[in-house]
């Protein structure tokens, strides 16, 4: 069944939301979602890298030999990440500081490699671009929403503007590590609830797009016997 362009674009926002449904790219999402602005910044960075790398990989898919495709994908992604990193350093130094090591780590963000492997390597340039934008928006939304919740509960502000701060004592644990895991878990449960468990099957095969997916499930099932 061929998907329409619109479906490709919206696919990543809810139905196959990379973070909440496919559970990809958890590390940066957890780490930077302490402030809404960081969530948004990270989201947009990922959006840019994802779209660009999707376009590039899709365009180069005939040239790249199948056997070395993963290293090639990584080089392409790493180049775009470096560009974004330099751009941030130049124009938004405070955001760059806040996101710190998580910007270079976009390289190993499994969303990007995953989409390259699962989508861009097989589809046309335009479809890949749409997929990248859709997935990127899905990621940005999730990271921003999660960051807003954590910022509101943990500091009483949203995007730095006081909401409940001053009237209600903020529950600071929400901007710390346990709060990150907790809110993330709750959001996933919420999506489970909203989609009535349809997404759970996908979570079984968690690292859907991850190049190590086959191995990963192998590890989970068989342990270290083989």
């Amino acid at each position, binding site marked *: 069944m061929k998907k329409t362009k619109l479906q490709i674009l919206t696919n990543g926002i809810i139905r196959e939301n990379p973070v909440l449904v496919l559970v990809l790219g958890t590390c940066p999402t957890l780490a930077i979602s302490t402030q809404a602005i960081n969530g948004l910044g990270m989201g947009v960075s990922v959006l840019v890298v994802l779209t660009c790398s999707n376009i590039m990989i899709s365009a180069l898919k005939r040239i790249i030999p199948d056997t070395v495709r993963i290293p090639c994908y990584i080089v392409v992604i790493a180049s775009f990440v470096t560009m974004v990193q330099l751009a941030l350093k130049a124009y938004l130094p405070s955001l760059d500081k806040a996101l710190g090591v998580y910007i270079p780590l976009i390289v190993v963000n499994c969303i990007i490699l995953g989409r390259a492997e699962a989508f861009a390597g097989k589809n046309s340039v335009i479809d890949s671009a749409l997929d990248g934008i859709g997935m990127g928006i899905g990621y940005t939304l999730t990271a921003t929403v999660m960051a807003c919740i954590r910022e509101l509960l943990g500091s009483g502000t949203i995007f730095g503007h006081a909401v409940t701060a001053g009237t209600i*004592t903020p*529950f*600071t*644990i*929400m901007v*710390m590590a*346990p709060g990150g895991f*907790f809110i993330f878990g709750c959001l996933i449960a919420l999506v489970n609830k909203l989609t009535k468990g349809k997404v759970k099957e996908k979570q079984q095969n968690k690292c859907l797009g991850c190049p190590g997916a086959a191995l990963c499930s192998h590890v989970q099932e068989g342990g270290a016997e083989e």
Partner: protein
Amino acid sequence: MAERHTDLIVASAPHVCAPANTASIMRDVLIALIPALAVSVYVFGIRALILAVSCVIFCVFFEWLVRKIMKRDNTIGDLSAAVTGLILAFNLPVGLPIWMAAVGCLIAIVVVKQLFGGLGQNFANPAIVGRIALFIGFASPMATWVINSKMSPAIMAVAEVDAVTGATPLGLLAAGQQVPSNLEMFLGLISGSMGEISAAALILGGIYLIVRKVISPAIPVSFLATVAVLSLVFGLDPIFQLCAGGVMLGAIFMATDYVTSPITTSGRIIFGIGCGLFTMLIRVYASYPEGVSFAILLMNILTPHIDRLTRHKAFKPAPEGGAAK
């Protein structure tokens, strides 16, 4: 001709059972907490009772509500939620706003217990996680200690300087100030979380639980002994360390939580030693003056491993060859 009965109940043996059931065990724990509650009400006044009752009500309410939402059997009758509520209250400063206590109850009952499937399935002690979450999340209100004239002069002395914070005995010790006498510590004429102040009342409750065979002495004894020994090693007063902070409450009522502690006696001894060790490490070195709840939580997390290592082996003859030795 004898009367015939053809509709008898057929059930699997055994057809008799020991009197203790889950609810009776929880009731015993509640009874054992009463002396400490009484001392707390005496020292802190009626506010202590209000806090305790609200925590119990919130916990029972959340338990009822979440079971209702999940469309499962209601389990408030087993009294475990009430026990969690009371123990959580014991871990809070008396002056804590009630809504913050309610947040603690929500975390304890909903997040730690019911999200994991309810009684018996949680891996961490609900009251402890509730307390730690509040302690870190509401750092300042959770370190605001109520003080009054019933307490030791050592505590009152600091009150004139600083009326709100840092006035627990462990806080005084950390600040290098005069601490209350050991007798005052033992009786509970000190500031602190509402239920933890009186070692005497907590020990009384502990003895009741041990006599009623609700808890085994393995965890409390190994926990307290480790704290005492390490106090000597660090050159501290063991009596003070045992009576200060949450050691008694933790050792007798929280570390002994069945669900989150090891199931074998040897495992329980390891668990108690671990609790004592981490408590003293945190007290002596970490930036927090008190480490009981972190220590117990860490040991909760280690419990599956301890259970694995202290697994019982079935009664059987030594394998051939092994017997020849």
